[in-house]
């Protein structure tokens, strides 16, 4: 009788701990996946590069550290040469890590070139 009661209490406690662990695990997965959403990186970099272009003067070359986004695209099996693109016709910076992409316009009439090398993006601006 006493043993049965002890077993019941043990099972309840184990279930309680397991449910708590599941809850904590689910929260952890949610926070982790939220922090690794690609579109946040895509949007941030597209806007950053567009602002750099608009703020630059002709014949400027800007070097930008983009190691984090390169690492993400390698994990995502994305060709690193396809991450950053300039849409010359529409004057847009297009950043893509996964299947989707994010585009942001700049208002300057510059000829912009982007070159990725060893985790650094070289932004060349010509009139």
């Amino acid at each position, binding site marked *: 009788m006493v043993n049965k009661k002890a077993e019941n209490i043990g099972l309840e406690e184990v279930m309680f701990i397991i449910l708590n662990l599941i809850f904590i695990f689910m*929260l952890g997965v949610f926070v982790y996946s939220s922090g690794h959403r690609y579109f946040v990186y895509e*949007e941030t970099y597209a806007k950053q590069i567009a602002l750099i272009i608009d703020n630059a003067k002709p014949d400027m070359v800007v070097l930008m550290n983009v190691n984090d986004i390169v690492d993400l695209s390698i994990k995502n099996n994305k060709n690193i040469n396809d991450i950053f693109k300039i849409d010359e016709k529409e004057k847009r910076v297009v950043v893509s890590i996964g299947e989707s992409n994010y585009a942001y316009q700049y208002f300057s*009439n510059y000829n912009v070139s982007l070159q990725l090398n060893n985790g650094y993006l070289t932004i060349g601006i010509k009139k």
Partner: protein
Amino acid sequence: MINNMNKKASEKILSLWWILVLAVIGTVIVTAVGTYYSAAINVNSIEAEILAGRVLMCISDNGYLIYDFNQSYFFNNCSLDRRFFERGSNYFFKLSINNGSDFNVSYGDASNEANCIISEKVDAKFFAKCAYKKENLIDRNGNNIKIFILTSANQIGRKNV
């Protein structure tokens, strides 16, 4: 026996209380993380500031006013793309010299000028963000010239899935 029953009842209350605590913690974390990552990164005010700086740089040289600007001056000399400064576009700028008595020109969506005044008074999320620049320059005769530049940007980036 009574003690045991009380203990069991208090355990049930405790587990209910614990579920409530977990629910509150979960809701707070999900709401906070969701709000943080879904927040739009709005750089329109920075764009407006940059545009105002570009216009000012373009019409001045070491504190002196460059005089020869005409209607197409800004697009030929300031490397601004004309397509983005037409009616219905995302950008707008207005340049006034001596309160508009000497020179007054504006490009882009003119409704943004009114929107700038409104958004100063009311917190309008989807309105254009504006920037103002007031400068004193010297003209070729050595006179003090008052420059007023108003710019606005209202671009929403495009996410393509």
